[in-house]
């Protein structure tokens, strides 16, 4: 390539990057198959928690949930049960509260500590104060699950995004346990037959811009 063309190439690159930026105004977050980033967030016990701390885990049930959403509250016991069933199989729950405490005061760190004590959460309950992790994952509602699987290179691959089951209101009437089905397949080394599910949930309470 001739030297004289370099400014032109540079200009075209700028145009290209500009077009890319314009084409993706909002980060849609992770899709199944993407690599999920690790995080370092404050747990209700005051310690910082990362996925990398759990050396023995095969993956994680990263659960965006909160104190205030009735759907989250309805699912608390089921999230605990999910952890108790799958942590021994290598997939513990890590709960992350994505809500801004100014927009949703009952989701403050102190209220999270209280809730974790009251419910005796057997898993970490982390505060995503800057909402950076929530944005990176692309969580939009609570509860919103991201099941990630640790790869041989140490990366975390998103295996499942969605809901826990098909009946938020009444655990005794659940017919389809979406998250458990995915985890069973994951633990058995099979591909997940239904890696995306949806549910009605509360919007995440974002910081005022």
């Amino acid at each position, binding site marked *: 390539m001739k030297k004289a063309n370099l400014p032109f190439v540079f200009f075209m690159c700028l145009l290209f990057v500009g077009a890319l930026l314009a084409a993706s105004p909002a980060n849609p977050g992770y899709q199944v198959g993407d690599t999920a980033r690790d995080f370092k967030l404050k747990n209700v016990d005051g310690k910082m928690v990362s996925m990398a701390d759990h050396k023995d885990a095969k993956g994680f049930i990263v659960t965006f949930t909160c104190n205030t959403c009735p759907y989250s509250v309805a699912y608390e016991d089921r999230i605990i049960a999910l952890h108790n069933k799958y942590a021994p199989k290598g997939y513990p729950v890590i709960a992350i509260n994505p809500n801004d405490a100014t927009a949703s005061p009952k989701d403050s760190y102190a209220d999270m500590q209280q809730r974790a004590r009251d419910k005796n959460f057997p898993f970490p309950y982390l505060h995503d104060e800057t909402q950076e992790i929530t944005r990176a994952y692309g969580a*939009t509602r609570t509860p*919103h699950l991201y099941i990630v699987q640790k790869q041989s290179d140490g990366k975390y691959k998103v295996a499942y995004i969605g*809901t826990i089951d098909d009946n938020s209101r009444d655990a005794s009437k659940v017919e389809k346990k979406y998250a458990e089905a995915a985890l069973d397949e994951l633990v058995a080394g099979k591909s997940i037959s239904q890696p995306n599910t949806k*549910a*009605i949930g*509360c919007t995440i309470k974002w910081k005022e811009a």
Partner: protein
Amino acid sequence: MTKLKLNFLLPTLAFVLAASPAFAQEVKVIKYKELEQIRNAPHDTLYVVNFWATWCRPCIKEMPYFEALTEQYKDQPVRVMLVSMDAVEDLDSRVKPFVQKRNLKSDVLLLDEVDANSWIDKLEPKWSGAIPATMVFNNKRKQYEFVEGELSQEALQGMISKYKP
């Protein structure tokens, strides 16, 4: 008053009392199929369908904006429908009292479907399931817009004036 008169009056009174709230809002319980029919309505009408629930704070915050549309466009082909995501078990204990207390004038429906995963993608693949969510459409004019999240009154008014027939 004779016993005979009482026997007549009491049921009449009961009937009148029971019938008068007919002026107040009814809540129609629907299944997904009926929601789909609304979504596919062929009329030259602008449908404004808002998904909400009694437990959803931002939904309740934006509800007056939808009520204002109903009032503002009452003689025009604009139809506001508030579709509750509350459980059907909460219809009498929560939804109806809510609707009556707020004296809602828009059409209020309750979607009686337990497994949201079975219908959300059929209705709108872009919707994650978070509420509030709003869809505005006029099928006759092939107009459609979907918004997930809370709307400001300006944004909602803007959408309606853009599409209203």
